[in-house]
């Protein structure tokens, strides 16, 4: 079972709420995915209004909301937005997204580190979205991040695990859960992330933009389960050479 901060999760598939054709398909997709942690952009939620239509569709005992700060460009803005989200959505969990570059939405490591430190001090459960940078992950761990969320490739790109070599290092070194976020375009990408030992993945675009988001959500659920199970089984090492069934050095013990 996966534990982040004080919470345990049955499902290792986290999902998002953007880009769906409508809230009904979003709701059905998230339900069938069995996801227990669902990220919601503060920018899309009507926090002033009494009832937000999107949130109404996410009201399910299994679902925990993970507000994200998408849109902010600095640590200061992120801290302010996180506090507001906490108040509006009644959670101290936050997915820190600080991407000052609106084109590729790549995260700013410096501002992210600063904001993580500040928010962790204030008692937030901080899950920062970052580049697959192993040193940054260690620094975030030291300043109180509850998990790290390195990217596989840019948000929405569906390009898969372009950063796999660095993800392996991050997973090897991390004392906190590693959630591979962004760029997972097809279920096999998610399975691959789980096979190398990621604790969870976050998938949004690939599900929301699929022709059938609900079936795609189920496909991702199965892929994440398969990838995790394979990881736990300790897969046989891949090799390009054939293994001799009678070892070459066997004669020594004769």
């Amino acid at each position, binding site marked *: 079972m996966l534990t982040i901060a004080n919470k345990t999760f049955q499902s290792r598939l986290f999902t998002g709420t*953007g*880009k*769906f*054709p*409508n*809230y009904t398909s979003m709701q059905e997709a998230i339900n069938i995915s069995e996801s227990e942690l669902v990220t919601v952009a*503060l*920018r*899309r*939620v*009507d*926090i002033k209004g009494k009832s937000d239509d999107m949130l109404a569709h996410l009201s399910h005992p299994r679902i925990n909301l993970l507000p994200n*700060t998408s*849109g*902010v*460009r600095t640590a*200061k*803005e992120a801290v*302010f*937005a996180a506090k*507001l989200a906490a108040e509006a959505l009644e959670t101290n969990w936050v997915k820190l997204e600080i991407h*000052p*570059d*609106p*084109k*590729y939405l790549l995260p700013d490591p410096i501002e992210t580190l600063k904001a993580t430190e500040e928010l962790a001090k204030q008692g937030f459960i901080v899950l920062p979205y970052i580049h697959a940078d192993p040193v940054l992950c260690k620094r975030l761990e030291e300043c109180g991040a509850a998990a790290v969320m390195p990217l596989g490739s840019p948000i*929405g*790109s*569906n390009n898969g695990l372009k950063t796999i070599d660095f993800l392996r290092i991050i997973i090897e070194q991390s004392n906190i859960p590693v959630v591979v976020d962004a760029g997972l375009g097809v279920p096999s990408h998610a399975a691959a992330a789980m096979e190398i030992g990621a604790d969870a993945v976050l998938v949004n*675009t690939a599900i*929301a*933009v699929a022709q059938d988001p609900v079936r795609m959500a189920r496909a991702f659920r199965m892929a994440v389960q398969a990838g995790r199970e394979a990881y736990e089984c300790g897969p046989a090492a891949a090799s390009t050479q054939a293994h001799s069934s009678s070892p070459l050095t066997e004669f020594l013990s004769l």
Partner: protein
Amino acid sequence: MIAFKDILDQYQPEEILHKIKSITSRDVEQALASPNRSIWDFLALISPAAAPYLEEMAVKSRSLSLQRFGNNMQLFAPLYLSNECQNICTYCGFSLDNKVRRKTLSDAEILKEVEVLKSMGFDHVLLVTGEANKTVGLAYLKNAIKLIKPHFANVSMEVQPLDQEEYEALIPEGLHSVLVYQETYHRDTYKIHHPKGKKSNFDYRLETPDRLGKAGIHKVGLGALIGLEDWRVDSFFTALHLQYLEKKYWKTKYAISFPRLRPFSGGQEPKVVMTDRELVQLICAYRLLDPDVELSLSTRETEHFRNHVLKLGITSMSAGSKTNPGGYAVEPQSLEQFEISDERSPEAIASLLVKNGYQPVWKDWDQALQYAE
């Protein structure tokens, strides 16, 4: 880094026209196949040689847009605050020499208009004025934004170009985006259509996005008014401008509009007419050049056109627009800037989107995200 003015001056419009004529289907095919399209690929895609490839362009454009923006369409409404204007622009209903009654909304009137827009469901608003510094200068705009900010998640502005310090004063008040269309990138043609007023200064207008970028604005809208010049040449320069800005002000988001000249009382006839087919070609070409740029479609276009083109790369639409100050509530009969074509209500547009598998997005920003101490 080199200024855009110097980049622009490296190209002669006639030279670009000549280049467009020499483009072959081979160039178009190469542009379509390229994984990373250049400004020259864009030129090939808007050329007459690309016309037979329109369906292929549309398929690619739709898929890129879906991937980047999802099944979402941002909705917004313009809020005209004033039709006072000291400029003479040959194509605009607010032009100084157009003898009409002028109107600038008071605080109470602005709030009346706001109430109507809110009841329609809008959370993103675009403030529009003419250029009249004594009546609608910085002080007026600052006050208007202060007044409006509590009611909208996102406030944009399409007014006269301002100085960097003026933008710096408005952004902390809640200004998110600024639209400033060059109208035409052809200096001589620009002079003909803007004979009098501050707007006649081509370079000051051209450098407005730079001042906005330096001021740290979140989004800048660009565009040429289609009909003043050869649309292909002007669109080429718009794309060139976009590429320059994206590299230089990398924290700013960009949007492009492609307004076609609309009739108004006593106005200019377009010099060049752009067909629907050509506008679709242009929209797709922008998307193929830049998967991330926002593409906006106004109510200038017809119902039929908007019904279909919304799936081909557009990311934001206005709906139920009034282009006259007080048009929603205060003074519905005052003079409009141009005639709108698609008069359907925001509710009707929202259900059109739903029918097409799109989620109408009323809110995609929060004032909290641009918190300033």
